[in-house]
């Protein structure tokens, strides 16, 4: 406010009054420009490991950008839920330790809505131009871009090509799996994610989508969750469990457990993410050279459905050097060398052009599956919705209690309320 402006005394008083009150009411100060010399990139331990994609991409950046802040990879726990909890604790407190956050595709809404991220609207065009549509969508929330797509992925079917040719439908898969396991003396017809956690929700949703269901309508305002499709999905799981199509111990199985069983040669089929492909081809793998991959089966007469997975890279609101952090996430998302590197580590790139050129089986399969991969509903409440699905579906498929109809009704009413109370 100019002091010497020819202000009428009364008006000055009004302006002063408003300024004073506004200033008094605003308690938060803004941070000045900062100059960090190191960017800390938080990512789960499997990805952060010595041969993981994070270290490879960080090295690429550090070598090619000697004048920019170096990126240091900080390994978070392996479990996605632990990663989320840890980041949430630190961000809730406004702690500046982590600059670049690897976010599971379903966390965008929650993290953006909580005010933990800096948006990437100013680099949006460069990222949008080169990215696959579904991963890009998963990084947006309410029309704004909050993260840069980094890796993608979709549920795929692994099978023992020395034992079976995979059938096209889930119903046939059960028969073929049971028969092949019996014939070859293998313990498990099928391994996947059956423990009570997010992975089981993803497996359930794949059946539910494949049966024609949707959780919410397109703009996320109305609950759909068609009882018919949901009951069908639970009944399918229940019968797979009862008939022994699901492996013993399926109900405590995570991605890692399923991978171990399949790698040991104890399973005919496996539902997993693309990253397993590389690990099954390592020297220590007992099924090396005998692994085939295919799109997930369908239900007769319905469309295929694979859940979209993957991670996006976001910039923490509390990052010390937001500018450099943005540059880095844009690099990881749009630099061709970085994205091709991911392919070599059997992670699905998010950059469309990384799929061009000579392709192995995995890349070919992903190029077909990813465009139709289904995102879990984008909502900041996903964690509690997922929890409710777990609470209802797990006991219904492992033990009949609650009956699938009741389980579905309970989920529906939870979804209704979670929309209302938001």
């Amino acid at each position, binding site marked *: 406010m100019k002091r010497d402006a020819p202000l009428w005394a009364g008006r000055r*008083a009004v302006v002063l009054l408003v300024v004073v*009150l506004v200033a*008094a009411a605003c308690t938060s100060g803004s941070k000045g420009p900062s100059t960090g010399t190191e960017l800390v990139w938080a990512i789960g331990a499997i990805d952060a490991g010595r041969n993981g994609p994070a270290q490879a991409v960080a090295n690429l950046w550090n070598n090619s950008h000697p004048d920019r802040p170096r990126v240091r990879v900080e390994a978070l*726990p392996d479990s996605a839920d*632990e990663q989320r909890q840890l980041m949430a604790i630190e961000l*809730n*407190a*406004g702690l500046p330790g982590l600059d670049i956050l690897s976010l599971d595709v379903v966390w965008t809404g929650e993290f953006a809505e909580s005010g933990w991220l800096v948006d990437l609207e100013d680099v949006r065009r460069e990222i949008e131009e080169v990215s696959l549509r579904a991963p890009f969508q998963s990084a947006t929330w309410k029309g704004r871009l909050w993260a840069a797509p980094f890796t993608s992925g979709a549920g795929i079917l692994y099978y023992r090509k020395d034992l079976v040719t995979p059938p096209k439908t889930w119903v046939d898969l059960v028969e073929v799996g049971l028969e092949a396991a019996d014939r070859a003396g293998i313990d498990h017809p099928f391994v996947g994610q059956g423990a009570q956690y997010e992975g089981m929700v993803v497996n359930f949703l794949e059946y539910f989508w494949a049966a024609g269901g949707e959780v919410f309508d397109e703009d996320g305002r109305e609950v759909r969750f068609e009882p018919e499709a949901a009951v069908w999905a639970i009944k399918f799981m229940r019968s797979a469990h009862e008939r022994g199509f699901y492996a013993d111990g399926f109900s405590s199985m995570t991605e890692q457990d399923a991978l171990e069983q399949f790698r040991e040669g104890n399973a005919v089929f496996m539902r997993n993410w693309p990253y397993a492909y590389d690990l099954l081809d390592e020297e220590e793998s007992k099924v090396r050279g005998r692994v085939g991959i295919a799109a997930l089966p369908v239900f007769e007469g319905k469309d295929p459905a694979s859940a979209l997975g993957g991670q996006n890279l976001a910039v923490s609101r509390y990052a010390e050097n937001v500018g450099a952090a943005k540059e880095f996430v844009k690099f990881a998302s749009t630099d061709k060398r970085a994205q091709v590197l991911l392919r070599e580590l059997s992670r699905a790139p998010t950059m469309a052009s990384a799929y061009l050129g000579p392709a192995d089986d995995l890349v070919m399969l992903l190029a077909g599956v990813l465009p139709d991969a289904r995102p879990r509903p984008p909502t900041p409440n996903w964690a509690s919705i997922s*929890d409710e699905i777990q609470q209802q579906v797990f006991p219904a498929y492992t033990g009949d209690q609650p009956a699938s109809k009741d389980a579905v009704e309970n989920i529906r009413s939870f979804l209704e309320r979670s929309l209302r*109370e938001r």
Partner: protein
Amino acid sequence: MTVIVEREGSDHRAGGAPETALRRRTRRFRRWETTPEKLRVVQVVLVSTCLLTGVVAAAALQARANATREIEDRTEPLAADAVDVYRALANADATVATEGSEYRRDIEEAARDLARAATLTARDSLTADRISDIAAQLPTYTALAEGALAAERKPDERASSLSAASSLMQSTILRRAETFYRIESESLDAQYRRAAALPVVALLAGAAGVLALLGAQLMIARRTRRMVNLGLGGATLAVLALAVWWTVAVSASGDHLADSRRRSQAVSDAFGPAQIAARQARASEILASVTADPSLYEPDFSARMQRLARSNGAGGALGAAGYLVSDQAGRKTVTEIVDQARAWRDAHDQIFELQKAGRREEAAAIDGSAAAFTAIDDALAGAVTHERAAFRTDVNQAQEALAGLVPGTVAGMVAAAAAAAWGIGQRLKEYR
């Protein structure tokens, strides 16, 4: 005394036609007749603006005070309860395996906290649902745990009951408790946003009131020789005085509120999660010590320790605590806990190495883990008590800072309205 001198406008236009008598009369009529009318309109506008401003401002203030009281009486206790419930339940699960019937104390504590939480919750909300779900599962859990204790001489039966109890706790009850905690922590944030929201409508109304008063004064000064109108001047002063009171009180209250928020956040977002992480880490350590393959529990242990104190307390719940505590004593406590956490990890690594090598007895002889855990648990409980007491002080001060402001605002604006009405009334008299 009241001589009205009409200020002649500069309508002696050079070369203008001489005014006819009729036009002059019309002009005079308009000026003389409309001024009192305008004054009456102004009077009504001023009185209603002042009264409306008073009502709006008082309502905004009341909403603020209510939100603050709500935080003190309901939201913060619920958020703290949610942490307590989770902690007690997680503890019961570890206790039943190691100290037998001692676990009952934890279950009783959890039940007490749940009952208290239930009285603070609106019926039919998600929270009420979670609370009744948890409460409904407790008897099942207790039955399994008691079954395990009764089967002391039958190891197989005991093990299977224990494992059923633990799985019920881990995969159902604790998850619900976590949702309960998450919802409450979010609603505490939301309630603070409401309490600290900028009273935009009240500010605009206040500004409109002052503008109207000054505009009226300007109008009167233009139309009459009276440059100062006592009534309007008084009314303006009253509004400005109120504005100063508001500014001082609301900003002081806002500061205390912000302090109290930091305190409650330190409990629900840092010390609480630290207590939970520490107990969970301890539980996985205990389970590792009684199972054949201790490495099964190592990923859990290390994830929980990271959640407790990532990078030696730079991050994790203790990092958050160090960042949120606002006094010297608090910071010192956090540093001590971080040191203990480091000692715990060292002891744990030693024990784990021995266990892996099959030297279980030697491993069991090292008590560094247990000692460090107990020290951390006690220190965290102390920190929570300290922060919650400080929270209550802050939130009370936030309320006290606003004391008298609601009636003050109403009285001040009524006085302003009366003064303005009187001030204009004085002018109006002169036209009779």
